[in-house]
């Protein structure tokens, strides 16, 4: 399968073809993108073709982006190179860094039909008269400085904390509003320093996003567009990369800071914030079906399940899970549960109904409850997907039911169940297995009888102790009884003999 469908949007695209914002994000986190981004890339392609060379040749990613930010894309990618008069206008339009002003299909259609397109409105960029030297660059714009700072976070944080940024805003850029916002952020971070270990990083992220609200979400060494989080995470999981930082950014609600600062519409913000809040709640739960695995499958709808059991089968549809597990039973380690963290997360993310209670059971500390939770989850899946007979999987699951059978106290009940399991395994019906093992009537009866047996055992023990106490050698009761017997025997003999004498006399 080609990169067009098998890799995240823009993943393999060189930075020069990306807009400034998407170029700043990591390869996996550039987001889904839009038609406007594709038109920009078309403009860059045309500039390459007309110049017959790469205009960004020899420039690093940082140099290219800083150049695009300080001069805008057109001068950087075309400059003073002589283009044909016909192509100059559309390339300038397509390379416009302002998405609102960038040419779209309408403008291109007008141009191709020979009509004149109205020139784009240029928005004046705020520049400082006093440049700031940071990262081998003299920065006059907050945007370029923010990008350089995001690449050198340690020295950037010091710069924020010593008040240099606040000072630059108030004196260099004469923007007291931003200076106040930066000062407030520093003050809030100071207050949180003792309780939040990542307060410094969060301060830096907030200030960088304040300085460049269009830039991607930035936290520690990761940068991603808000719609590119899932792909960025997926790429890092594939690379065995820095997943923790991505998870941390969600837990620390960094996308929330981005939305708070950005000028996105309230409804879009609400949807996105709800989306990130859901991811956060998944990350805050440690059990199977939650965590980073759940985020992966929630954020990338077509991502194949990465469970080691079925990773080679490349299962991306929930309908295929049970037949695949059924097929891999011959090769898998059947002493382990067929539902691991990835499978649980995949099922939870793709399942139409809620499986929260089964996931909670899967995450229980009690191994028996975990097994029952696994069985219930598979039964739900078999019912919802109409998976039919699953001989291999039922055999696999049936072999793991030992601890569940031991939930019954009665040995005879256990033996009965153990004798019944092979028959159910041959039928391949997981729900029948669940009915057998988790029958509430049988469980209640077993519990009642167990308590009665416990009481009987205790009473027998009490009686044994009482007998031992009363009939043991030298016990007071035994001595008393035996002496009484001796006395009564003597009296009876006396009565007998005297009666005999009287009767004889």
């Amino acid at each position, binding site marked *: 399968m080609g990169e067009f469908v098998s890799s995240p949007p823009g993943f393999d695209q060189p930075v020069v073809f990306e807009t400034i914002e998407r170029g700043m994000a990591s390869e996996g986190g550039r987001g889904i993108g839009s038609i406007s981004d594709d038109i920009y890339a078309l403009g860059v392609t045309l500039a390459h073709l007309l110049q017959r060379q790469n205009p960004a040749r020899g420039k690093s990613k940082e140099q290219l982006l800083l150049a695009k930010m300080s001069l805008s894309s057109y001068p950087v990618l075309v400059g003073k190179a002589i283009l044909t008069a016909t192509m100059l206008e559309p390339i300038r339009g397509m390379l416009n860094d302002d998405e609102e002003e960038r040419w779209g299909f309408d403008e291109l259609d007008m141009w191709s039909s020979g009509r004149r397109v109205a020139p784009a409105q240029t928005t004046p960029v705020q520049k400082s008269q006093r440049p700031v030297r940071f990262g081998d660059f003299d920065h006059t714009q907050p945007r370029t400085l923010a990008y350089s700072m995001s690449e050198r976070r340690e020295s950037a944080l010091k710069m924020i904390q010593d008040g240099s940024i606040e000072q630059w805003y108030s004196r260099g850029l004469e923007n007291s509003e931003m200076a106040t916002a930066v000062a407030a952020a520093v003050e809030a971070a100071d207050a949180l320093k003792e309780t939040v270990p990542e307060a410094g990083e969060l301060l830096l992220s907030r200030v960088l996003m304040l300085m460049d609200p269009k830039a991607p979400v930035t936290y520690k060494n990761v940068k991603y567009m808000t719609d590119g989080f899932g792909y960025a995470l997926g790429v890092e999981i594939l690379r065995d990369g820095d997943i923790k930082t991505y998870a941390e950014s969600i837990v620390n609600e960094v996308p929330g800071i981005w939305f708070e600062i950005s000028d996105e519409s309230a409804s879009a913000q609400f949807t996105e914030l709800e989306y990130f809040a859901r991811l956060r709640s998944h990350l805050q739960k440690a059990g199977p079906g939650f965590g980073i695995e759940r985020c992966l499958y929630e954020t990338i709808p077509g991502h194949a399940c990465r469970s080691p059991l079925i990773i080679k089968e490349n299962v991306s549809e929930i309908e295929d899970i049970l037949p695949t597990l059924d097929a891999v039973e011959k090769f898998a380690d059947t002493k382990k549960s067929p539902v691991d963290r990835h499978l649980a997360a995949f099922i939870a993310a793709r399942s139409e109904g809620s499986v929260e209670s089964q996931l909670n059971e899967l995450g229980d500390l009690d191994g028996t409850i975990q097994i029952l939770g696994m069985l219930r989850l598979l039964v739900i899946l078999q019912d919802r997907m109409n998976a039919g007979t699953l001989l291999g999987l039922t055999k696999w699951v049936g072999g793991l039911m030992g601890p569940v059978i031991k939930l019954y106290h009665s*040995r005879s009940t256990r033996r009965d169940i153990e004798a019944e399991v092979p028959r159910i395994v041959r039928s391949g019906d997981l729900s029948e297995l669940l009915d057998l093992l988790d029958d509430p009537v049988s469980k209640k009866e077993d519990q009642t009888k167990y*308590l009665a047996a416990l009481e009987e055992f*205790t009473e*027998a023990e009490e009686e*044994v102790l009482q007998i031992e106490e009363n009939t043991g050698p030298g016990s007071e009761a035994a001595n008393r009884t035996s002496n009484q017997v*001796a006395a009564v025997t003597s009296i009876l003999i006396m009565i007998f003999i*005297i009666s005999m004498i009287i009767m004889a006399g």
Partner: protein
Amino acid sequence: MAREPNLEQAPRQAAPVKKASMKSLLWVFMLAIVIFAFPESVILLFLGLLPTVVALIIDKSPKKYSTFCVGSMNITGVFPAMLELWAGQNNISHAIEIITNVFDLIVMYAAATFGWLLFMAIPPVVNGLLAVVAQHRIAQLRSRQRELIKEWGDDIIARPLDQADGVKSASGQAQSQTPAPPSDIEDLDEVPPAPS
């Protein structure tokens, strides 16, 4: 300030003492009447029942079982002599004649000795019988316990009833009153030894 004597309480305490002394006095009076009315019978009984008197003195147990044993047999031994006395002249000289007869005396004292023998021989036998019955009952109970363990597992031993799934025992007894279960299944085979 001196406390006034409780005048009402004094007669109440004195009453039982007076009653007891009256009772003793009555006994002495009756004994005196019996001694004066039947001196020959009293002599024969006193000398014939000497082993019983000895048993009464040396028996320190509250219920005086040995006195009962010795006394019963002793009375059995004295009874023929008493019949002889009452059926004959029934005077002091006849009583002395009986007492001085070695054969009669042997019968009385041998009967008392038999009473002692009964008191020494019967309790161990009864103890043994009791132990056998107890062993049988214990064996029955242990057998039932083994059956319960076979059906319900070892944890039935280790778990006192009121800890089992939070269900309290039907008797409502405190846990301290519940006997400690045997530490091992092997303990169930133990039966108390019979007394030798």
